[in-house]
């Protein structure tokens, strides 16, 4: 009932940040979607704008932390080159590409995941900036609000692709 150092970091990258990302997305999306003049009084806008800011900034920060930890902490363990005759279970990439039945977990899933994940922080940061910049005025900028909602969803899609493949790759060849 103990986690190795690698399992701990993989857990932080995938599960802890993943759960926080989902939480921030849910709050931020609901806030952006319902931020319409016909739904809210001026007091209502003022009351929910700080929460929207926390949700969008939180999602951007978590997105950056997730990709940085994933790229600089977990990924080097995944792609490490095994010495001659080593047990490949300690070298996930090599283990996956050693068999034609599992090679696509690297050649397709990991190759897509490691790149597309980085879209999430770019998009989420633009959204967080829009919310921070306009504040309570965002309710009167339906064009910006719609664009921010679209980018917010696309950030979630990018992170979702990465998260789903990350979970499946970990099942096939865990970093441990």
């Amino acid at each position, binding site marked *: 009932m103990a986690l190795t150092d690698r399992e701990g970091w993989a857990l932080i990258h995938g599960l802890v940040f993943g759960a926080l990302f989902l939480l921030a997305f849910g709050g931020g999306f609901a806030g952006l979607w319902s931020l319409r003049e016909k739904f809210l009084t001026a007091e209502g806008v003022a009351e929910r704008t700080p929460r929207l800011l926390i949700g969008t900034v939180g999602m951007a920060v978590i997105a950056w932390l997730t990709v940085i930890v994933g790229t600089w902490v977990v990924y080097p363990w995944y792609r490490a080159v095994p010495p001659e005759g080593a047990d490949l279970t300690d070298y996930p990439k090599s283990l996956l590409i050693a068999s034609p039945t599992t090679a696509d977990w690297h050649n397709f899933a990991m190759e897509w995941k490691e*790149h597309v994940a980085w*879209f999430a922080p770019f998009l989420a940061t633009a959204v967080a900036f829009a919310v921070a910049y306009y504040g309570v005025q965002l309710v009167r900028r339906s064009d910006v609000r719609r664009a921010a909602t679209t980018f917010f969803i696309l950030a979630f899609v990018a992170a979702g692709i990465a998260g789903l493949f990350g979970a499946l790759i970990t099942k096939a060849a865990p970093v441990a």
Partner: protein
Amino acid sequence: MSSQPANDTKPNGPVAAAFIAAGAASFALGLIVVLNEAKILSGAFLDFAKNYGIGSGVGPLSGKVILSTIVFLAIWGILGFIWRGKEVNFGRAFAAALVFLALGFVLTFPPVFDLFLAK
């Protein structure tokens, strides 16, 4: 590209700059991936972790993501400076951002970038 601010709100130039920068950074990452597959940008060049001591064992992915992050910050900074205090055609700016982003998604899709694999 300038127009009138809507409903006495702040001008949208800086926000349009951020959206275009995010799309352009995604496109830049896709383009770098393709250039790497085609061996126009080598894996050794893109291994910023090794070349500049930014981490260990990350390989070419380090250069790809650092360069695309630089693109994000640079375009945001430049357009944000040019468009500060200005109202721009936000629909057109967002459409451009979406086109960049769509290209980024396409170019980072393995069956697509594998088409550019150097023989």
